């Protein structure tokens, strides 16, 4: 921990923060002061380290990212480099935000992305550890930003049906029973954030891959190419340096969209089928 050369950190030590008030005395109108211990790394090649910052004047209505915005505004004004992190929609759907908070990808609130996590889940005086996704296949770009190109490569390997624009038959030509459509939709809800990879002890992208494989394998449109697809996507997964799945189920626990590990079982079935084709 080497935050002591930081200006903000010197203003208030964590001990003082705790002394500001008990854990329960911030009502609707009170504000919180928090100690943040954040991974800082200028670029992919430079060494990284944890730095300490203080977040002041935070209300329970701040989202987690808005709390970081407040800290960053202070840093900029004092001429320091703000903490960089990925984000865009800030409503839990684009899959861009990616932070490990107190050891848990997306911060551990069930089915919630970092951008939808609110500060009411924290208490005045808390110390919060903030780190980037960690996985061999996700190199760090800067601070909390990682490179998720591996997920793109998996998609490019076979995450599509080979339809050409304009030649498609009428949409109702092939009825799809509601339960199958619902199953496909359950799988399709994956936002490609990569939390499953970050949560997995092996850094496996199996949950992500399985969701796409299962979606297409369930639908008549996708079945035609099912065998090639599953083989190509699993191959890409290995080529990109993602680990193997050894059934820890940490992925499902971390997934903000509740993607179910049943899809991994489905992928495995498809894979075995494909090998015998």
């Amino acid at each position: 921990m080497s935050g002591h050369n930081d200006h903000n950190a010197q203003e208030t030590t964590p001990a003082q923060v705790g002394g500001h008030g008990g854990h329960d005395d911030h009502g609707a109108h009170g504000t919180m002061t928090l100690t943040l211990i954040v991974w800082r790394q200028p670029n992919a090649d430079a060494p990284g380290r944890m730095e300490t910052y203080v977040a002041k004047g935070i209300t329970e209505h701040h989202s987690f990212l808005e709390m970081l915005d407040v800290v960053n505004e202070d840093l900029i004004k004092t001429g320091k480099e703000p903490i960089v992190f990925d984000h865009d929609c800030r409503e839990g759907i684009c899959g861009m935000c990616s932070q490990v908070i107190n050891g848990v990808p997306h911060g551990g609130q069930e089915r919630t992305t970092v951008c939808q996590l609110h500060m009411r889940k924290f208490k005045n005086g808390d110390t919060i550890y903030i780190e980037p996704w960690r996985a061999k296949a996700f190199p760090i770009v800067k601070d909390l930003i990682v490179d998720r190109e591996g997920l793109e490569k998996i998609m490019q390997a076979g995450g599509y049906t080979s339809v050409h624009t304009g030649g498609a038959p009428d949409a109702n030509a092939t009825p799809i029973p509601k339960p199958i459509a619902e199953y496909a939709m359950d799988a399709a809800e994956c936002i490609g954030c990569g939390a499953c990879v970050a949560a997995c002890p092996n850094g496996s992208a199996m949950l992500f891959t399985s969701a796409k494989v299962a979606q297409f394998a369930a639908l008549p449109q996708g079945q035609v190419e099912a065998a090639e697809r599953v083989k190509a996507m699993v191959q890409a997964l290995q080529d990109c340096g993602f680990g193997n799945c050894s059934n820890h189920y940490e992925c499902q626990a971390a997934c903000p969209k509740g993607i179910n590990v049943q899809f991994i079982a489905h992928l495995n079935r498809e894979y075995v089928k494909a090998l015998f084709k």
Partner: protein
Amino acid sequence: MILDGKCPTGPIEKSWDKHRFDMKLVNPSNKRKYKILVVGTGLAGGAAAASLGELGYNVEAFCYQDSPRRAHSIAAQGGINAAKNYPNDGDSIQRLFYDTIKGGDFRAREADVWRLAQVSNNIIDQCVAQGVPFGRDYAGYLDNRSFGGAQVSRTFFSRGQTGQQLLLGAYSALSRQIKAGTVKMFSRTEMLDLVVVDGEAKGITVRDLITGEIRVHTGDAVLLCTGGYVNVFYLSTNAMGCSVTANWAAVKKGALMANPCYTQIHPTCIPQAGDYQSKLTLMSESLRNDGRCWVPKKAEDCGKVPGSIPEADRDYYLERKYPSFGNLAPRDIASRAAKEQCDDGRGVGPGGRGVYLDFADSIQRLGEHTIRERYGNLFEMYERITDENGYKTPMRIYPAPHYAMGGLWVDYNLMSNVPGLFVLGEANFSVHGANRLGASALMQGLADGYFVIPNTVAHYLAQTKPGVVKAEHAECKKSIQDVKDRANKFLNINGKKTVTEFMRELGTCMWENVGMARTEKSLTTAIEKIPGIREEFWKNVKVTGTGAELNQQLENAGRTADFLEFAEMLSRDALHRNESCGGHFRVEYQYDDGEAKRNDADFCYVGAWEYKGVGKEPELHKEPLKFENIHLAVRSYK
């Protein structure tokens, strides 16, 4: 200059088919000789890049996110329209055409809207073939719902994530082309300038957001598919990175900006809670099917617990003012009415900027279970953000900027007035007129990308020699230098205020003066104030770090600088348009009952602005609009 939309003549039913036949084609073996630059990979750009790659063109595609799958199209919840008439309730291309023209308050081109309605059906076929899991009924056929402004059920949906599923469809088609090598994808790359050589668009200058490298990509045509600009109001329902930057770069190189004052305000958003707030969250409009809007009659009741305010002291203002539509009044009307209550000092919640959306009656009538089934995910979303339980206490809502109907001017071929520069999706101005009906933006993005541009870009390329301009060209070098100079300028100001502070200041000024209801006075105020904010920005902004690295402050500084110029043009457009229509409401022009008063005699045209330099008054060009198939009529929702 009178602008020519180059719309086909003759019967409207045949217009697109005839036009398609009349256009020139590019020989299949020649296609790969042409390079097309596609900026933006949302629904419009993703679909365009995939389709053009498939046809055999050499495509380079760009987006500022780390993956094309994260474009803001991902956030659309409600659905996408098409004239399939699957429910057999009388829908047709003609009816979708009619509803869209009328809903847009007669400020869109007939031919463009007809084409949109015509190809809407192909979109659904295409998406289903891609494996988009649309909602289905038990027999396995596609399910439809109805949506604002239409009396037929023509909206296709994938739960509350339609935009996500459509974008993933386009993204998978794009991924296939990337793999095939026809499309080269450049993520985390932001377009900062347009290269125009001898009057034609021949390249773009970009910044690699990771390394900071500034470089030019040359091509034979440039497609801007860069989305909307409503972040000019600072707080909006758009993603944080949405900007006017690419469009503004084109404007500075001669492209015309059409109807910028048509901005849509969405009535059912979660109100702002504090100054730190970074965005506003939209909740589906369907909530107004069962929720009743009200505010306390007496200002002194506003701070009270809503349940303690007796019926007699509540003002159900929409039901009072619009008895036949009530809580289901269209977006612009419901939004304005909410603001009026708040301006009158009767708003609720933080800062008095909110009205109640109350489900108590419908819960009593239908049971909590039914309401939970219908809107459960929205109640959950509301609770996550506000920590309030909408089943127990009324939700609070407030209107928020949501969508840009204005954008770069394009002709029927989606080509701007700069030859070779095409504009697709929300970035252009074409089909929505002054007001966009629900579920039609997704339709437009995909229509433009899958079905229009593959035809129209060919017509242009067939008359163009490929590969004329190379990166060594003087214009390319100049563009690189300009972009570098600007970045250095930001980095060297070393002032006292952050970029966000300036953006917030601009946004507040825009929302207060150019927001939902505009007056000559408020608009003049904005036009006077904006240059001051802009000047201070260039003297007093603080951007840390360097240009040769990932630098989010630098990115934001550029976007803010562009908004600071664009905002003035938007305000001027609103000031010149002495009428009220759709999303543009001028307080001076209304009927006694508060309805918007359109002025067809004087303003039935597209207002397209030519940039004349920073702080200089832009020049207005007009494209007259003709309504030959649908008669101009007053929009009434009484």
